[in-house]
């Protein structure tokens, strides 16, 4: 009886590890799409509102997917301090804080970092082009992440479960 309970627990544990791994794959495309959406908001603020960046960032934080809000809120906070740093630097610091809590990979991090440098440093047209570029990069990354998710998520789920089963068989 005890053995049976142990076997069940092993199976559940391994299964949930597999699910957790799979979730990273599932989350990444969602998060990429959420960031893309937030950038769309930012573009609107800049292009049509000509809203100064600290305010624009705070607006985006209030409106976008709550999971992404921290990134924009932190950038706004850094900028409001007037500590002599540029928007690019404020953004990069915010990205550094934000990244570890996400399902994003190195390649996504590069896209986000590259987005910072010219931020706020040129006229509307230029800013819009720049945001468009980043959005299309994010879209592409999201598509890739989606297809990876389809391939890997299920594999990891099965792997966890089957691994658990194997462990049970060996130990039983």
């Amino acid at each position, binding site marked *: 009886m005890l053995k049976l309970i142990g076997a069940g627990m092993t199976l559940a544990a391994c299964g949930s590890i597999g699910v957790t791994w799979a979730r990273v794959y599932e989350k990444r495309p969602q998060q990429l799409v959420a960031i893309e959406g937030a950038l769309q908001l930012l573009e609107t603020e*800049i292009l049509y509102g*000509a*809203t*100064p*960046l*600290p305010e*624009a960032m705070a607006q985006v934080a209030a409106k976008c997917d709550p999971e992404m809000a921290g990134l924009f809120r932190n950038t706004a906070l850094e*900028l409001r301090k*007037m*500590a*002599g740093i*540029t*928007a690019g630097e*404020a953004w990069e610091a915010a990205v550094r804080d934000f990244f570890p809590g996400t399902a994003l990979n190195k390649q996504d991090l590069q896209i986000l970092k590259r987005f910072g440098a010219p*931020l*706020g*440093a*040129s*006229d*509307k047209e*230029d*800013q819009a082009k720049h945001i468009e570029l980043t959005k299309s990069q994010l879209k592409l990354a999201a598509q890739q992440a989606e297809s990876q998710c389809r391939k890997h998520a299920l594999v990891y789920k099965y792997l966890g479960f089957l691994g658990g089963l194997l462990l049970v068989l060996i130990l039983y």
Partner: protein
Amino acid sequence: MAGGAGNNEKCGKKGESLVCMVSRDILPILPNRIRELLTELPGEIFNQIEEIRLRQGQPLLLGLTKNDTMVTALGQPTSVPEFGYTVTEQDVMRTVQLVSSSSVYAFEEEIKNGFITIRGGHRVGISGKTIVEKGRVKTIKYITGLNVRVAREVIGAADRVMPFMIDPVFKEVQHTLIISPPRCGKTTLLRDIIRQLSTGIPKLDFKGCSVGVVDERSEIAGCFKGLPQKDVGIRTDVLDGCPKAEGMMMLIRAMGPQVVATDEIGRAEDAAALEEALNAGIKVLTTAHGANREEISQRPVFKYIIEQSVFERLVILGRSRGVGTIEDILDFRTGKSLMR
């Protein structure tokens, strides 16, 4: 050590010292590197800063009350260019970003005009490579030169002028033209006249009247987001960044001013707008570049105005006894001095 203002200075109050103003308004828009250099400066130099000039590849230069000085990489004044701290491309770029709170795109109009007004009413002039489209400046692309000008406010600068500007019997404001060579405190005087007319002058038993200001170059009221940063009185309406002629019409139609004030008239349409104001029974207060009555009467716009004998008072500024010396006040029609 000058940057530590706030410890023993009364900051944030009316009549606060220049040190306070520069520390609070100007330092935050400069890159950290240059902030540090300026805070290292001896107090008597820091106190006199009127301009901070950042020119890419050139030494950091400060315009002081009487002369100018360069600043070494250790934050000491020097007159040897080689010893001066060389302003880098990074410094200029950073300053532009800080001045615009990292939102250059929100200041396209201002950049087109060549300057941005910051909190406190100070102005940052911009130079570099202009991009022209259809014969008009579209933007300044490679910004390489900046001039941060500390806007001073001298409350009481117009004290000596006011008795001549108000009719002692009828308490009526006189049409007044202020003339002066550049950098003699024309705008400072105009601002204080506006403030006194608007708030009222108990000494002269003048109650105060509504004043409309067309501030085309944001120099008079130093508006930041439309809000005057300088004291221009309690009955003053400001149209910031508005062309003079158009602005005068707008004010006359909408705000019902008793006095209209503008800075530096000189174009033909300005004269037409002045005439409109006069016909509406509104008193006019304005300034022009020039050293004396003869010099300005050569200029076509003024020729007409003088022939019409529009103005009643002519205030002549100079710097014979320092910036803002009131050289003379004339009765415009007779040309006689009222001061002697």
